């Protein structure tokens, strides 16, 4: 369930041109905040990516950038707060309570809503992860404010409004969305859409602690257990340096092996375009694109992928995009850097062999010397 993307005509004829003065009670809302997502003691990298984006917005607005750290009372939460300063926070709001050891919607929504109502940020950013989306939706509805999902670009206008750009219509168009008369202006951003900012070692600054003000009996939902993904089963697609992916041009599920073989030789992760998931050839955690994962590798090899706009949205951040496709008019050649017009089924085994030869220990000595 979700909202229909609005059509251009609605945008033009809507309230966009009728901005009112910001209601008086919202004028106290200042500063840019980033929710620092940590689960089981580990900060999700998307939080640091957002700190990079948040820093730019705060500088442009000439306001502070604050990190909001919510978690159990202990070392991991303290560490997340300290790290926030290394990624550019001017201050940290912290809710540390052992009831926050596991993510639960009820307790985290209360914690974040309370901190927002007390310290009033103008802009609040969260990662578009399972945790971030669960939390952002609840918090925005509680605060009755606007929330723009899965943004690909964030900027502030001359008048200080947050301009949040996101794909619409399955990625075929982009739209810029404003939350003009409500505060905070909330947005989520997917992992890997924003570049990772540089970590600069800095001393811890001002940490503002806020109480959770809940007891366990207040929280209905209980965590019975947690089954961590086995490392071997876990796809690290979003953060892989090299990704090899296949599309319908491979012709059959058996041929998808060719993609996996090349990925293995390159020490890469493998992925696919949406039709392969729909056909059941590949599991959904391997899907790249608008409804799948956003990737940002140094090298991306797309084999038999035509490059529909939905796919393009997910791979545009790659440093080098290599396309293999039989159709020289395939859209992928519009955004790939290097292409070859040939049948991926025939080229992939040769490519795997050639890479293996080139990257063999003997060759490595050659590179080193």
């Amino acid at each position: 369930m979700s909202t229909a993307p609005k059509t251009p005509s609605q945008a033009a004829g809507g309230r966009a041109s009728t901005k009112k003065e910001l209601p008086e009670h919202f004028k106290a809302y200042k500063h840019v905040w980033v929710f620092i997502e940590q689960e089981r003691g580990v900060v999700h990298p998307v939080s640091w990516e957002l700190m990079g984006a948040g820093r730019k917005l705060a500088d442009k607005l000439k306001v502070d950038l604050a990190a909001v750290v919510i978690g159990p009372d202990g070392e991991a939460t303290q560490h997340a707060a300290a790290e926030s300063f290394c990624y550019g926070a001017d201050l940290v709001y912290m809710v540390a309570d052992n009831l926050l050891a596991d993510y639960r919607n009820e307790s985290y929504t209360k914690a974040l809503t309370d901190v927002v109502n007390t310290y009033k940020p103008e802009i609040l950013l969260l990662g578009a992860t399972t945790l971030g989306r669960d939390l952002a939706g609840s918090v925005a509805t509680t605060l009755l404010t606007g929330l723009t999902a899965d943004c690909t670009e964030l900027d502030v206008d001359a008048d200080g409004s947050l301009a949040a750009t996101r794909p619409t219509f399955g990625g075929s168009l982009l739209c810029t969305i404003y939350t003009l008369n409500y505060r905070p202006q909330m947005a989520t951003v997917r992992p890997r859409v924003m570049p990772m900012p540089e970590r600069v070692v800095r001393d811890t600054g001002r940490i503002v602690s806020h109480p959770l003000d809940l007891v366990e009996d207040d929280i209905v939902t209980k965590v019975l257990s947690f089954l961590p993904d086995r490392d071997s089963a876990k796809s690290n697609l979003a953060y892989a340096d090299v990704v090899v992916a296949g599309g319908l041009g491979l012709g059959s599920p058996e041929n998808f092996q060719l993609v996996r073989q090349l990925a293995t030789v390159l020490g890469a992760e493998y992925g696919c375009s949406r039709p392969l998931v729909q056909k059941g050839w590949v599991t959904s955690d391997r899907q790249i694109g608008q409804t799948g994962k956003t990737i940002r590798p140094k090298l991306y090899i797309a084999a038999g992928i035509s490059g529909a706009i939905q796919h393009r949205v997910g791979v545009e951040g790659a440093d080098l995009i290599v396309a293999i496709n039989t159709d020289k008019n395939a859209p992928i050649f519009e955004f790939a850097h290097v292409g070859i017009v040939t049948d991926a089924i025939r080229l992939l085994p040769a490519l795997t062999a050639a890479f293996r030869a080139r990257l063999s220990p003997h060759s490595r000595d050659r590179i080193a010397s």
Partner: protein
Amino acid sequence: MHIVVCIKQVPDSAQIRVHPVTNTIMRQGVPTIINPYDLFALEAALELRDKFGGEVTVLTMGPPSAEDSLRKALTFGADRAVLLTDRFFAGADTLATTYALATAIRKISTEFGPPDLVFTGKQTIDGDTAQVGPGIAKRLGLLQLTYVAKISALDLEARTIDAERRSEGGVQILRTRLPCLVTMLEATNQIRRGAMADALRAARAPIVKWSAQDAGVEDISKCGLRGSPTIVKRVFAPAARSEKAALIEVGEQPAEALIEAIFKRQPPLEAELATLARGY
């Protein structure tokens, strides 16, 4: 047991094209489908009803033509369909959508009995926000379980539900209390082919149609474009990259030529790949 399933009729986004000159959406002839994730939600609801008894009500907000999707849901075996349709709902963002749907669910509750569970898909394939489920839960004061892969237990006497929820690093097994809202993940259940009896019934079944007023909307300014805090200011096509891909000739050794082109373009990659590839 009463379950409400929220579904949305969406354009099949895979078939949407942008006009190459005007950069506008070409909607003509694009087929509409039930949002695929909502089908998983519907199937989960039907399985629970078949096991525990009770009724499944499907609810959608949309134009009058969204009746097609409701009828389809009835052929799969839903017991009742409610269409929330009114021009006041047009242009709603997620916050305004959750206001309207929550109001309709309250009305369903008084008309047909309070729901024990409300299901939605994890997100739609047109809006992709994943915000409406959590928003409805918040509006109705329901507990919520999002990104659910599996409902592992339901105890109607103790009023508890156990579910496997996908999180970033693994699976959380959660227990919460009914009534609660569940958003369903993909590919955990196969949508059934409706029984012939259901198909026959669906063709004639009445569909409950409510305007904003019928549904009991108290404040029309909270609906549609007027009730939406977010405003779309600009819609545009992504910028085209200035240069097209440098094409490699398919000569005698195309693989070698391709690798050469890759390393020529990004020289540091060769050493990095050699390190990454170590061990293979």
